[in-house]
């Protein structure tokens, strides 16, 4: 086992894989990559199974110095990547030589980026997964952390690139299916949901993506605590809406008025604070 040293940790960088199965009844959320699609691409570009752990970066990337040779790939938010100051491309596999520094810069489009290494990052496993969660003792990356990985030993190598047809700048509309408490919404509130343009709040995180705008307060402000699922939209007492995400609490007491398709979570995960979206209730 060899190590990559964290030269710069970025704002919020964690290990994420495809999540923690089977512990929800202990209150342990699923966790895992917020944009499962980009994480999978990064893994596939280095020949990994999509279940390997990647490093998830938020808002800006990390800088790592690799002790030994490595095969890495980055996918997700648009950014500048340099290897010892030489420009490299995103969505493409990269060979890092011993001692080199891989610097992933600020994200200028999209919000989350994923760095995979061939063989997967060998960070600690807790309850069957490498996905970070503070409550389980798995904390975000810090400067000077050493991350284990397997050195890349193949002599010949074909670079793999992925043609990214996704654009993070296109108009986003999420289609909502009715949730268990959908009936508490009045017709005028439903019209407002369908008609308004919503803004991603800076208070959003891996537990919930929150929208800034306030809808009218409803007479029913809370429910008896009950299971929630990533993708469920809660209607807060103050009229704000929040999407439960992968680190979100397993049970909640706010009305679950609607939910989005699981695939849309990948898109939502790439939305930046201040970006706009539309909602459309499917009847």
């Amino acid at each position, binding site marked *: 086992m060899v190590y990559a040293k964290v030269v710069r940790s970025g704002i919020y960088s964690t290990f994420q894989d495809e999540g923690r199965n089977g512990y929800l009844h202990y209150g342990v959320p699923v966790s895992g990559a917020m944009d499962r699609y980009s994480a999978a691409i990064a893994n596939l570009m280095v020949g990994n199974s999509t279940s390997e752990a990647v490093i998830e970066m938020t808002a800006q990337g990390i800088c790592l110095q690799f002790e030994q040779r490595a095969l890495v790939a980055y996918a997700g938010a648009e950014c500048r990547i340099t290897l010892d100051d030489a420009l490299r491309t995103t969505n493409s596999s990269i060979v890092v030589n011993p001692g080199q520094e891989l610097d992933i810069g600020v994200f200028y489009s999209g919000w989350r980026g994923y760095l995979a290494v061939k063989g997967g990052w060998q960070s600690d496993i807790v309850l069957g997964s490498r996905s970070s969660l503070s409550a389980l003792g798995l904390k975000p990356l810090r400067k000077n952390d050493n991350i284990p990985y397997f050195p890349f030993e193949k002599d010949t190598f074909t670079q793999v690139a*992925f043609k990214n047809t996704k654009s993070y700048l296109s108009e986003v509309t999420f289609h909502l299916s009715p949730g268990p408490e959908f009936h508490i919404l009045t017709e005028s509130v439903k019209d407002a949901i369908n008609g308004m343009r919503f803004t991603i709040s800076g208070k959003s995180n891996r537990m919930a993506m929150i929208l800034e705008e306030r809808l009218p307060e409803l007479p029913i402000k809370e429910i008896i*605590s009950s299971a929630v699922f990533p993708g469920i939209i809660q209607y807060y007492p103050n009229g704000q809406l929040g999407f439960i995400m992968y680190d979100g609490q397993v049970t909640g007491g706010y009305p679950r008025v609607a939910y989005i398709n699981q695939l849309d979570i990948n898109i939502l995960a790439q939305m930046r604070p201040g970006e706009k979206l539309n909602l459309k209730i499917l009847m």
Partner: protein
Amino acid sequence: MLLLLNKVEDTMTIKSMPNGYLIECKKGISIENTRYLSQLADYLKNQIPEIRSVVVGYESLGVYLEREDCISLRSRLELCLEFWVGTNIDISENWNTHRIPVCYDYSICPDLKDFCIQKNISLDRCIELHANTTYFVAMIGFLPGFVYLGGLIPELAMPRKSFADPSIKKGSVAIGGMQTGIYPTESPGGWNVIGMTPIAIFDVKKTPPSPFKTGDLVIFEPITIREYVKWRK
């Protein structure tokens, strides 16, 4: 969906959730109801392997399913295929060569004599042509453990019989069209039996039951009738 069970008090509803279901059972908050739901949670988990977790609420169950499919299976497939083409994914080149003893004798191979006559070749020549080729396992199918072998030389090709033999013996080595293969069990079939192998090529007591993998090599090694009989014992 509304389920009405024996008693009105047992009314439950199932609501779709992202990657799961919410089962609501509004009987009020009490230890009896919590135990009822807790036991129901265990029961559901035991009955349905796809259920990853069941979260017990005061009046509901959250059923979480296995395999978060945030990327459709089709998309995964597409991504894998894209990367497969021209990439350096580590493939293990672990091909096996299987040496199969075969007895080419008129007394035990029902179609061998007719085969040689139709082909206008001697028995020795037939053995030479069939056994001197290295075949590859092209496909496994038709019966448990039946291997379709590629590489038969054109001179030995023989169409399937116009009527299927109701019972081809286990171990028969046969030719059907441009293919040659081995019958792992007794079966009806239309291929021309020109050889017999004394070994079992499919055994459910073994793991894996069949030693063959598509892409493996197969070489037939001629044995005498005496050796065949001895082997069978």
